[in-house]
């Protein structure tokens, strides 16, 4: 079962990227990799637990403060229930946990059609 979503589309087989893949754990500080971001092929943020929300702040900082424009992929314990908020924080790729159907999960991007936050 395909488990990878990128730009709201299911990607059957992920092509291996050219260039560095940076992987950040919840306790990592994105400032520490800021100078490598421009050359990175991808940044992965790991969510080892369903309820550990540190990666949301990491994504926000990567996009808003450090200006990262490339692929930002959430990996780990990800279900469709995270997708809406994760995309709002700047993720554009998602590797779902085993057992999640990526095709069904796409609907989660339209869980909400409006938001309060500017």
């Amino acid at each position, binding site marked *: 079962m395909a488990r990878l979503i990128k730009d709201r589309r299911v990607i059957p087989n992920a092509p291996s990227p050219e260039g560095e893949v940076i992987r950040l754990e*919840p306790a990592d500080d994105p400032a520490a990799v800021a100078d490598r971001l421009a050359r990175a092929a991808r940044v992965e943020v790991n969510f080892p637990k*369903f*309820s*550990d*929300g*540190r990666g*949301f*702040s*990491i994504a*926000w900082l990567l996009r808003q*403060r450090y200006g990262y424009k490339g692929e930002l992929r959430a990996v780990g314990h990800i*279900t469709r*229930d995270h997708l*809406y*908020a*994760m995309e*709002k*924080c700047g993720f554009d790729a998602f590797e779902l946990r085993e*057992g999640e159907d990526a095709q069904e999960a796409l609907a989660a991007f339209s*869980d*909400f*059609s*409006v*938001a*309060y*936050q*500017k």
Partner: protein
Amino acid sequence: MYRYDEIDQRLVDERVRQFRGQTERFLAGKLSEEEFRALRLRNGLYIQRYAPMLRIAIPYGLLSSKQLRKLAFIARKYDRAYGHFSTRQNLQLNWPRLEETPEILAELATVEMHAIQTSGNCVRNITTDHFAGVAADEIVDSFVWCELLRQWSTFHPEFSYLPRKFKIAVNGARQDRAAVGVHDIGVHALKNAAGEIGFKVLVGGGLGRTPMVGQVIREFLPWPHLLTYCDAILRVYNRYGRRDNIHKARIKILVKERGIERFREEVDAEWAHLRDGSATLTQADVERIEARFTRPQYEELPDEKPPEAGPFAAWVRRNVHPHKVCGYAAVTLSLKKTGVPPGDVTSDQMDAIAGLADRYSGGELRVSHEQNLILADVRQRDLRRVWQEARALGLATPNIGLLTNIIACPGGDFCSLANAKSIPVAQAIQERFDDLDYLHDIGELDLNISGCMNACGHHHVGHIGILGVDKHGEEWYQIEIGGAQSPAALGKVIGPAFARAEVPGVIEKLIETYLEHRDSEAERFVDVAQRIGVGPFKEAVYGKADQRSPRHPERALA
């Protein structure tokens, strides 16, 4: 009353659809227990001792008669025809069925209500002064600021999976009736020398297992920065708050471990990036929210002469409160009648209360964090009729501010976290102190009961606080004195715990000690407890050190 706009309505409708899907996936085995737990909790759904419990949000305690009728209907149709008002101004249903909760949420959405973020590790219902908008000492109408914070915190994408729950309180008046000192963030409206509105911001307060009084992180935050500053605090907390130990995960532990100075530096460093950013509030934002609140149309009325004696006068003295508009008053309907669990109301009572609100208070009510209901805009000339009708409904016990106005969590009768029962203790105390004249003589006294150290009954800030503890599988009760909501102070434990049957007698001894030591009737129990300390109370309860039984040092009283 805040009226939803199209966005508010769409969000709650879409939330119902989302939660319906999550429940279906759980029941179909596509979501694990642990995953569904994190999702159902942020919709207020607990799995309790005997049944699920659904906590329905009443944002900042403001409720319309139409909404209350809907709650009565829901309690009748989906539960056992009663509900429990909590210390966070919400309503809890104790017996809903898991499969039916999406239906209940759909019913709520039809009256602009929901259960969003009433539990879980996210920003919870914003609480405030139950006299907001009508208090004579008002600086700002805190409802407007609560609603701004409610919108900011609702589905905040970055702060949906915090280390732990997060409680914010707003106080808009000179006197703090929102207990801002015991919240994760407490904001207190101020006017500076130039007449500009801002907020004193406290952080790191909270009750629970490690009670702490919040510390001032900012003396005066100009109002446009309220949300960006909260963003900065939440981001520091989300990144660095402890996640290794649930008992150390609240922001108060982070603030304590860092120290307020270092914590402030971190928040300020974060805020430097956010300040004046897109979440900065404008006058137009505030006016847009203000315009969505309906306001009562007050008549020009004279103040009435208060009654002098008799049961009506006793009720007016305790349950009627001053109003900023001449000829009006706010009325507390007491949900603390002896024999009824504190904060409980039946569906029939809810319907009748909605009728009272329609006839006498512009169709609006407030829920107080003391678990009572308030009619905020009553014409003084209607007070006697309101009293008569409330009395017929069992809602006119003249005990607001007095010992029997007990704040209590649902306790071991319902809650799976509880170590001990709360409700029978409350009842036994109310029965012991059933003499109204004696109660009035004792004067103002907050008595709070929690069935476990999670402190939902806010026992740390009760003038007398009772905590249920478990000792070798038995229910015991620890007693503390000298706590207060405002200025926030934490009670001190008087000594070893008691068996349930002993508690009313201990309370009696504490009261006798207070009466012996007070300077005048104006000196309240809490004033005496703070002035003379625990010593004399301890001695009265346990006896002098040399009189205590050496064989049963823990049960000297028994």
